[in-house]
């Protein structure tokens, strides 16, 4: 009987109850409490998971990808412990295990599914019985917190070096920064990528995305781009090329907000997959989830049905029904993410009105300069730009300026700092059956979720 562990779990669980009773969704405090009492709480609980742990990291798509992995594993009748709600710092991980454990300190699960940001990989890698690591992509994200991109890649690389030799490492072949982590490692490396070039563009929208070769530092040459710096690349200097993916998307058809259809290929064959998540970047998320679960031996048909049943997870991109209207909430937190959302909005030719809510609290990143790296020019120069945009949040005016300088008509921009006002005004502008596109940063998303919840349109997010 490990009394320290039990005490940590009890106090953690008590904190969860307290914070819920006080109306917060606070998903890291229980973890802080438990870790303070027993620093080994993650290790002690994770090692009880019968089949081991899967670690998901990268800049964008962690939460959605993890949700998909979890749904596939559950389809395969495995029990999964998963840290959700985007609380993917070490405290969030500890909180998830504490909540999953019973009062006797036991966890009945097959897999621990742990999503962490790049900076946390090293801190958890030794505490998990690792079976697989999945790396999604690397983008610049909240520089004031993580430091520079090279440093971020380095942090993950060091984490991977400490993964057990029999672990699987699934890497995005289309992202040169991720694929560059592969060569020279003793572990089994599985690359995934998109082979269908239908949605590729011959040149990047912005030259800013081109990355240096990870092997020699020369500027990479691209044959085509999927989005940002993801694409088909090669190094003119040392000859490094994009690795041939084992799990790939052979064909894809985007159906706007409805989702996407695709044909996946693994070394066991081709199969059709339909997902309900919109946009090309969710195709990447589904592909990544398919790659790691395939690598763990899940049959293709289970992967397909698991992905088909998966639905939007908290706030990343979800549709909430409000009095016969729909609000599509899409979290935005960095240029690549916002570019992907802009593409999705434009894919829906019926999209007429938008709200963009920018906060600059710690969890959002206090520096909002990244708005200027977002491709709002694509939105404004489209042949069907939105009829109106409401900007909201603490930095509503900055967002309005950004839109104006992207070429969007100033008279169609409304500034409403209050998220409540912005939501009401946005809903008033759309008709029944229409969708309001609502793009909040992290804390703005929490706020707007709370506003919607108070009106009874959705459940508490920790129960989703």
């Amino acid at each position, binding site marked *: 009987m490990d009394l320290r562990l039990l005490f940590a779990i009890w106090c953690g669980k008590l904190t969860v109850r307290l914070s819920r009773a006080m109306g917060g969704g606070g998903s890291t405090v229980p973890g802080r409490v438990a870790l303070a009492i027993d620093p080994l709480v993650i290790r002690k609980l994770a090692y009880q998971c019968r089949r081991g742990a899967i670690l998901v990291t990268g800049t964008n798509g962690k939460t959605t990808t993890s949700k998909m992995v979890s749904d596939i594993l559950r389809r395969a009748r495995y029990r999964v412990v998963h840290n959700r709600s985007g609380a993917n710092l070490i405290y969030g991980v500890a909180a998830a295990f504490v909540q999953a454990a019973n009062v006797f300190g036991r966890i009945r699960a097959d897999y621990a599914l742990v999503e962490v940001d790049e900076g946390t990989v090293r801190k958890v890698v030794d505490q998990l019985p690792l079976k697989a690591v999945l790396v999604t992509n690397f983008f610049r994200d909240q520089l004031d917190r993580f430091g520079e991109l090279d440093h971020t890649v380095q942090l993950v690389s060091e984490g991977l070096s400490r993964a057990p030799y029999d672990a699987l490492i699934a890497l995005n072949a289309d992202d040169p920064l991720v694929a560059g982590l592969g060569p020279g490692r003793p572990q089994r490396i599985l690359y995934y990528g998109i082979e269908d070039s239908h949605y590729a563009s011959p040149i990047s929208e912005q030259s800013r995305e081109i990355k240096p070769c990870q092997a020699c530092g020369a500027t990479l040459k691209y044959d085509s781009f999927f989005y940002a710096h993801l694409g088909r690349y090669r190094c003119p200097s040392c000859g490094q090329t994009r690795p041939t993916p084992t799990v790939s998307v052979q064909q894809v058809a985007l159906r706007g907000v409805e989702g996407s259809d695709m044909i996946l290929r693994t070394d066991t064959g081709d199969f059709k997959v339909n997902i309900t998540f919109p946009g090309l970047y969710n195709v990447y998320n589904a592909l990544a989830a398919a790659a790691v679960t395939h690598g763990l031996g899940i049959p293709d048909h289970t992967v397909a049905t698991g992905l088909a049943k998966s639905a939007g997870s908290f706030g990343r991109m979800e549709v909430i029904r409000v009095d016969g209207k729909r609000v599509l909430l899409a979290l935005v937190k960095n240029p690549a993410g916002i570019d992907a959302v802009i593409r999705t909005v434009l894919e829906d030719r019926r999209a007429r009105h938008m709200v963009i809510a920018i906060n600059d609290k710690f969890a959002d990143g206090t520096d*909002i300069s*990244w708005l200027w790296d977002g491709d709002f020019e694509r939105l404004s120069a489209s042949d069907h730009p939105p009829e109106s945009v409401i900007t909201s949040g603490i930095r*509503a*005016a900055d967002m309005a*300026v950004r839109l104006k*300088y992207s*070429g969007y008509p100033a008279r169609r921009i409304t500034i409403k700092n209050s998220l409540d006002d912005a939501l009401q005004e946005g809903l008033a502008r759309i008709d029944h059956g229409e969708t309001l596109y609502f793009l909040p940063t992290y804390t703005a998303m929490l706020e707007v979720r709370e506003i919607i919840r108070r009106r009874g349109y959705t459940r508490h997010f920790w129960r989703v």
Partner: protein
Amino acid sequence: MAGGLAVRIAHLYPDLMNLYGDRGNVIAIYRRCQWHGLAPELLRITLDEKVDFRDFDILFVGGGQDKEQKQICMDFTKVKGAALSDAVEDGVVLLAICGGYQLLGKYYRTGTGEEIPGIGLLDAWTEAGRKRLIGNVVISSDLVRVGSDHTVVGFENHSGKTFLGKGLRPLGRVLLGFGNNGEDGMEGAVYRNCIGTYLHGSLLPKNPALTDYLIGASLRRRYGEAQLKPLDDTIESIAHEAAIHRARQPVGR
């Protein structure tokens, strides 16, 4: 905008120095030129390109990551430095932010005491600091005095501390934030039509008076005069005021 006066803008190293939304500054210059009825032309210039910068009207260089900063440092000192100095002496407008600003000085002294040479266009030098200076900044600058308002707003994020030689004017005095070094209350530097500063955010979009100052200076150099009619800057003014308000509050909350 056929018929308008041409304004040639050069964005240096857009592929390498693009941290912190620096392209917002170029977008701001370009758009406001259009709105003023001018005919802006934007060229991107990268490593190894030898250019006579006197052919341009406005030059911009931003900040980069360490790795890129080193590449640019080489290119600055070996390839472009002299041409840049010539252009600034000739009155060309140059805006340099953060890493770009540091490279215009005499040197950057690293934590280990190593001195990385800059091009010495500005009588200034930078020393590695232990603490990162991060947050919203408000300065007062005579360059943008419009009536009683003379504030410039931005966001800083640097660990290098820059000091100015005796004869060099700062861009402004710090009202809120750290500025060049967090010690002497000065922010940025102005030499002829060259401005170096730590402020991004992006800097120019929220400071339309500064943008117009730069465009005006470039027009005076090439065409001898500049008459910029005031534009409708309602949204920019709201953002400017909001940034001042935000700078008074604690960071991150």
